[in-house]
């Protein structure tokens, strides 16, 4: 176990960023999002939830796949280089770490592997911060995440004005060793941390959605849930703005497009949203014509289709971002409650 005083973090960050890219939550114009740290930026480790999740770091909102140049001899294809150097993601929260394992199912664990994502996953050192003040909208426990015990290369807790760090993988140990000078030894801090964990867990117990039941969802429920009459009323107010999909750490739909740079064609991919009406539009037809169908797709994917295809793993980690951000207060909690079982008293 190591520790570092809060006031010494900028020094640590300077050292880390001299050795490797360092991503932290940074506050700009009152909004905290993930960004590349440099000494002009202040890391914001107090804000519980970044607006957009750190999926950006692994699966960027916009990412060039390859360039095509054209001359008299024809085309030349230049694939973009994959990430080749280690980098650090500092302060990622437990639910967002869990979300990476959900995305791994799509991009890593199912052929063909997405090499762009794989290279980033393999080169990342995750330093995950426990959630000392979980919010009313958090329900990570429902999906098996323990907000008090980050499951990453390095687990980190903030107690008083100190950050305590413990390596949990070889990669994590190597990272702590690499920057050993920045840390103080904290053997014997175990009790302190255990006490803090108890406190976190008791807050989690008291959160309004913590005991949400998933009964009625999951594998085998395709027909029953698809035909549930509640979708209509639940989706009536949906604006099709796509906010829920963009802030979600597990939404992985993408589009692939062209950009003419003037010197060549960039083929890039960018996040897309199943909530948009042109997502499935074709010349002769569109298999999802109404917002009800699109809204149903998003939640059926997360709560039924994905678990059916992935041994029961849900495509939601309970981060609560869509609960916070949907302008119409239509969110996954409402869906789970309305159509699930045993939620009458929640």
């Amino acid at each position: 176990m190591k520790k570092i005083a809060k006031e010494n973090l900028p020094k640590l960050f300077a050292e880390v960023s001299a050795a490797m890219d360092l991503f932290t939550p940074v506050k700009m114009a009152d909004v905290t999002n993930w960004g590349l740290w440099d000494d002009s930026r202040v890391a914001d480790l107090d804000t519980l939830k970044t607006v957009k999740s750190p999926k950006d770091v692994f699966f960027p909102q916009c990412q060039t796949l390859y360039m095509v140049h054209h001359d008299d001899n024809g085309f030349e294809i230049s694939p973009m280089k994959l990430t080749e150097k280690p980098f650090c993601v500092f302060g990622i929260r437990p639910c967002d770490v869990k979300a990476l394992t959900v995305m791994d199912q799509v991009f890593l664990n199912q052929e063909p592997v997405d090499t762009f994502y794989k290279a980033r996953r393999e080169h990342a050192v995750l330093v995950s911060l426990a959630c000392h003040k979980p919010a009313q909208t958090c329900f990570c426990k429902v999906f098996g995440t323990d907000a008090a015990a980050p499951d990453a290369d390095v687990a980190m807790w903030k107690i008083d004005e100190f950050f305590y760090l413990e390596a949990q993988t070889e990669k994590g140990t190597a990272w702590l060793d690499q920057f050993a000078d920045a840390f103080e030894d904290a053997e014997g801090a175990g009790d302190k941390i255990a006490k803090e964990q108890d406190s976190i867990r008791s807050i989690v117990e008291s959160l309004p959605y913590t005991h949400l039941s998933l009964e009625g969802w999951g594998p085998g429920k395709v027909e029953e849930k698809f035909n549930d009459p509640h979708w209509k009323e639940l989706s009536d107010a949906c604006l099709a703005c796509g906010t829920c999909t963009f802030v979600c750490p597990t939404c992985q739909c993408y589009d692939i497009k062209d950009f003419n740079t003037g010197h060549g064609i960039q083929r890039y991919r960018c996040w897309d949203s199943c909530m948009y009406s042109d997502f499935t539009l074709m010349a002769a037809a569109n298999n999802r014509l109404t917002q009800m169908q699109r809204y149903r797709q998003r939640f059926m994917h997360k709560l039924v289709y994905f678990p059916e295809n992935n041994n029961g793993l849900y495509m939601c980690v309970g981060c609560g971002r869509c609960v916070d951000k949907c302008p119409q207060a239509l969110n996954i909690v409402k869906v789970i409650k309305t159509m699930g079982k045993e939620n009458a008293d929640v």
Partner: protein
Amino acid sequence: MSEECLCHNDKYVRDALIPQIGIIQKITQETPDVRSFQVIKPGGGKLIDQMPGQCAMICAPGIGEAMFSITSSPTVKEYNEFSIKECGELTTYLHGLHEGDQILVRGPYGNHFPVEDKFKGKNLLFIAGGIGLAPLRSVINYCLAHREDYGTINILYGSRSKKDLVKLEEIQNVWEKAPNTNVYLTIDREDPEWNGHVGFVPTYLKEVGFDTDLTAIICGPPIMIKFCLQGLTELGFSKEQVYTTLELRMKCGIGKCGRCNIGTKYVCKDGPVFRCDQIDELPQEY
């Protein structure tokens, strides 16, 4: 970077989303709005080894990328052929290309018709409408190339008019002359240049009245598929005997962009070929 760099390790193969360069070696005007493109590697030779029914993504950089069936049979070793209907931005651009021009191609994608097991030894009935012949042509030619593995081959194909029949020359010169093969052609409306059958495919299907010992494969516009299925059911076919392909909008072709699912199935990966009883198990969203 040092030699240890993971990216230069075999673990990182070229990403599936990155295409290869293809050269258009031959263009055939099939109908007023369908052209076929034979595509080869820059140095010559076949670009993609595929099974009948599989597709590939064709990209014109700066214009777009879309999925097309590989219409040539796997037994054709020299090139891959695509029959493309002009209907939008990319397809119009492709129609403007010339022999010798380059395109980008990636694939093969999707599953294929079960020519190696379920179809073996069976009497087959192919039913196609319009450009729907494209995916079936690869199966038909595959079966004809392995003639002894299959029973009677029946082909029922229709289009709006005579000039809208894709690959008519091949149909008349090769398929109609193949052993133990029956070809039934039809067009929607009377045409002075046509002395064959006139009428919609589903109606013709019922008129001919095929035996129920056939395995049927249908491809064409959704409405035609629907009425052909009804027709086959009336003739006594069960859904386990009927195969078709589904077509949804696609971007990645590899089950990751999240665009082409029907329930738990991704049409790009788990399809495009489905048996009709399997389709019945999917949510009604196609």
